[in-house]
């Protein structure tokens, strides 16, 4: 009897905990959207240029910079992380080198993003002399996100059934051909999901970028060496500079817009993952 009552109490408590957690996150999302969405959908705000200390500035250069940085970073991350993942999942034996690589990937993943920012500033901005630039920012976030993409790619590769490989190898295909034609295609949905989640993370990144890519861009960057302030970093900058009379509206609007972008991408990532998962499951059943 006592056990039953304890069980009932525990059930209620866990229900409350679960609902509290989800409501905290929903509440924050709601507040940000409620405060900023009105501003965020004004074309003059989305497509305008920042106006410094005057009211009515827009965020177009920052939006474009965010996507430039994301694209460039992915361009660097994808080949390296997929090749590394192939090595770790398909070739590497459990030796000292492999374990060391994994340790380094783990360490890289655990470093705070501000440390990447410091590194990017020393090496790309100052040592290489690139200044606050698109390329410095992109390389910095590329380093920051390399381990997560690598890990998710490795996991996707490992989840491809061994039978696929055996079938291909027994037909006389080389190891590399097996990976390219059989293993990689089957792992693509997983890799894609991981990549989409990374896009969301890069769009939301600020600490590693404000002192590598720049704090504010007055025009859309037109070269790799132009400063390219991303939206997330700009939100922090506007908040800390608080110069324009309507700076609160600018932050509210930018925050809402950024949140929508990130949530849509994360949601899309999960959908893609689900969709392919269902399809492969259905396919396997048919076999």
């Amino acid at each position, binding site marked *: 009897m006592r056990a039953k009552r304890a069980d009932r109490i525990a059930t209620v408590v866990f229900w409350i905990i679960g609902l509290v957690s989800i409501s905290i996150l929903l509440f924050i999302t709601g507040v940000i959207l409620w405060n900023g969405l009105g501003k965020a959908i004004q074309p003059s705000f989305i497509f305008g240029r920042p106006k410094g200390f005057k009211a009515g500035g827009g965020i177009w250069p920052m939006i474009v910079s965010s996507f430039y940085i994301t694209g460039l970073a992915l361009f660097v991350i994808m080949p390296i992380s997929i090749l590394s993942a192939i090595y770790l999942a398909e070739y590497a034996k459990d030796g000292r080198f492999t374990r060391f690589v994994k340790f380094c990937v783990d360490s890289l993943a655990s470093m705070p993003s501000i440390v990447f920012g410091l590194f990017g500033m020393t090496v790309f901005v100052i*040592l290489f002399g690139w200044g606050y630039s698109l390329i410095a920012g992109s390389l910095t976030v590329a380093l920051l996100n390399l381990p997560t993409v690598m890990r998710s790619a490795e996991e996707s590769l490992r989840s491809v059934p061994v039978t696929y490989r055996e079938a291909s190898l027994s037909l006389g295909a080389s190891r590399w051909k097996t990976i390219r034609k059989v293993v990689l295609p089957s792992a693509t949905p997983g890799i894609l999901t991981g990549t989409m989640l990374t896009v969301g993370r890069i769009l939301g990144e600020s600490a590693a970028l404000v002192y590598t890519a720049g704090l504010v861009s007055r025009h859309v960057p037109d070269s790799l060496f132009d400063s390219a302030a991303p939206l997330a970093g700009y939100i922090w900058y506007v*908040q800390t500079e608080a110069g324009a009379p309507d700076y609160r509206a600018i932050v509210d609007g930018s925050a809402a817009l950024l949140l929508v972008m990130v949530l849509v991408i994360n949601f899309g990532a999960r959908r893609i993952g689900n969709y392919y998962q269902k399809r492969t499951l259905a396919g396997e059943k048919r076999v």
Partner: protein
Amino acid sequence: MTRLKRLKGIGILTGVLVLLLAIGLLAAGCGESDSKNGTTSEEGKSSGVSGKVTCSGSTTVLPIAEEAASMFMDENPDAEVEVQGGGSSTGISQVKEGVVDIGNASRDLKDEEDDGSIVDHKIALDIICIAVNPGVGVDNLTRDQVKGIFTGAITNWSEVGGADGQITVVIRDAASGTREIFDEKALEISDDNPVELTGSAMETNSNGIMRETVASTPNSIGYISFGYLDDTIKAVNYEGVTPTIETAKDGSYPLSRYLHMFTNGEPEGAVKGFIEFVMSDEFQNDVVGEDYIPITKL
């Protein structure tokens, strides 16, 4: 066995390759930094000014510099002026290092910063106002009261004639010229008189966020450039004197300082054009004159 050996060879080879790549990158980077220094071009004087001007430094000078930049770029479509904050000390050290063309500062050059090559362009006289949250019922503070509040000897508004309320002190970052002048002139801190500020003072990185913090935090006090004053905060009288352009000009309000643009050597090309524009009667009267005391009127 041979296969295994070959694999080991591959490992070593790869290591060497990676190392070479790293060294190559480093070398390439070093070359790049040398070639990127000359940012100003001196051509095309007849058809307006062209070239790139970069400035950084004081957030007090920032609104003036930004306004000047956008007006200057309207007049000279081939010119590009980039303005960033960072604080007076940052501006001065960056102009010395050649990172920027102009270092903005809201304080004078210090002896240890003067290497002989820095050229000073005074652009305006600014006033530092002591600002409180509008809810604070105090309108005047004496020198000793200000000292007491910022050093933590006075912690409640009731001690200086206000209603009961724990004082929140807001200060600026260490690189701020405004803080430098305030510490020196209002708190009389010097090397011979090292006074500790109250530890609970919250640091803010710009005039703007200082205004925002004081405006939104009840019972708070801070200091701010005259140009940033608006109705979200309240400027109190200091020693019975209201901070205005007139009282600063005649010297009865003591917390004033020059705003500077520093260049490394005499300015040339676009940088020269930009500074001349800032000093022009038109810009000084129409823009600087709104919130500061134009240098042309002194």
